């Protein structure tokens, strides 16, 4: 299972998590972990998700999430987990 990391950065507002989770649920993407923090007044959220049951491919999910981000005024990025594992784990 290749896990995907979704990051959300932007101004905190009502309903960010709800909007994203709705999208993930309707595309059969399972959330494995979720955490958030505020860095320099910016809302930072990270989700680790499993996309193995999703119908759409990575590209499409990535573009959809970008679109969702634009609608709520935050930046949403999807990346394969390996880039973080490589950099931070030996």
């Amino acid at each position, binding site marked *: 299972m290749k896990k995907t990391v979704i990051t959300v950065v932007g101004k905190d507002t009502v309903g960010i998590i709800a909007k994203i989770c709705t999208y993930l649920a309707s595309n059969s993407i399972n959330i494995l972990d979720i955490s958030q923090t505020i860095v320099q007044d910016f809302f930072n959220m990270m989700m680790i998700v499993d996309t193995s049951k999703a119908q759409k491919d990575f590209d499409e999910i990535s573009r959809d999430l970008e679109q969702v981000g634009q609608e709520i005024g935050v930046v949403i990025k999807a990346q394969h987990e390996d880039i973080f594992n*490589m*950099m*931070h784990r030996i």
Partner: protein
Amino acid sequence: MININEVIETNKMIEQENLDVRTITLGINLLDCAGPDISEVNNRIYHKITNVAKDLVSTGNRIQREYGIPIGNKRISVTPISLVGASACKTIDDYVSIARTLDKAASEVGVNFIGGYSALVSKAMTASDELLIRSIPKAMECTQRVCSSVNVGSTKTGIDMNAVKLMGEIILETAELTKDKDSIGCAKLVVFCNAPDDNPFMAGAFHGITEGDAVINVGVSGPGVVKRALENVRGADFETLCETIKKTAFKITRVGQLVAMEASKILNIPFGIVDLSLAPTPAVGDSVAEILEEIGLEYAGAPGTTAALALLNDQVKKGGVMASSYVGGLSGAFIPVSEDQGMINAVEAGALTLEKLEAMTCVCSVGLDMIAVPGDTKATTISGIIADEMAIGMINQKTTAVRIIPVKGKGIGDYVEFGGLLGHSPIMKVNNFSCDNFINRGGRIPAPIHSFKN
């Protein structure tokens, strides 16, 4: 599991500190394209490159999307053309026709540079080597993407001074033929000592004859990331400084290793090496000179610069070596002038001279790189500069290179604009005292005593 701070750190490196994979370079063996008939050779070269590299650009783009890491360039290196063309090329124009073919193939597969219009003549030139070298000015004039290099010396063989002399003339001729574009042909022409076979970085990349049929080499970069990391340890001692560089280099190189493995898997081409160099671009915040400033110098070129660069180069290697299963290429810190805004500022401030750069090349990963000099510089003077740089490489058992651009019609106080990654630069002063009698001696400089390790 990965935590949010680690994710934020990585993405900050990418988004704010210019962390990127500078290049995925696909090395392609062209020896099997050799033959007696030039049009047949051209045909084979074109088909081999466009076939092997057909998915290179899309693979790079796919990795970029999936991991969210920018991949700056997709490039190709080929077997030195002096070998591939040896039996077919009877004239300069025959060789130039191969350069045109390389350019066409590069354009067809969508790569921005193709390297390997090269000759390896560290001991002496064969007739075909010399013919290729003499064809370089014309090849640089009539192509956009072809990069050329000539290896004129090594620790094992000494320095071919005939080739050094010839290269001074060839560089001037290349400058003349591309004078309407600020002599840009010379920006794609490198003279090497101890050239590595597996260098993914242009303009000096070629596919070594010791390599397999095709290989994926990756060059990572990230001077901005190192600079930012060092901002957090201002005033700390050298131990802390070195540890910080080492850890940062490790993280940067891991990304290169990931991209190399992934590209190798998708393209089904063996993974060669990761080159863990700090390679600047003209963009602000992507500068090696700024790292030197952060280490504690007012400008690159101030006293202490060579020491600072030495420790930087060494720590980058130490951090990177453990991060990748195969490290190769040049690996270290590049110090091109026109491609690094901090270096340009240092030249303009009068802090950085050609002589200081030469000293810096003793401890950095390459050599005198992207240096614009007056267009009326003599061929023997350029050969003298090359000879000095080659001697540094030969004696210190390291790769050194010269990429010097005598800009036609320009002199001290003028400015040259190459555009894009090649950057811009003030014209630098050259020591014009004569070395004619030295260069005109001819022959070769014998290999140094420490080459006898048998």
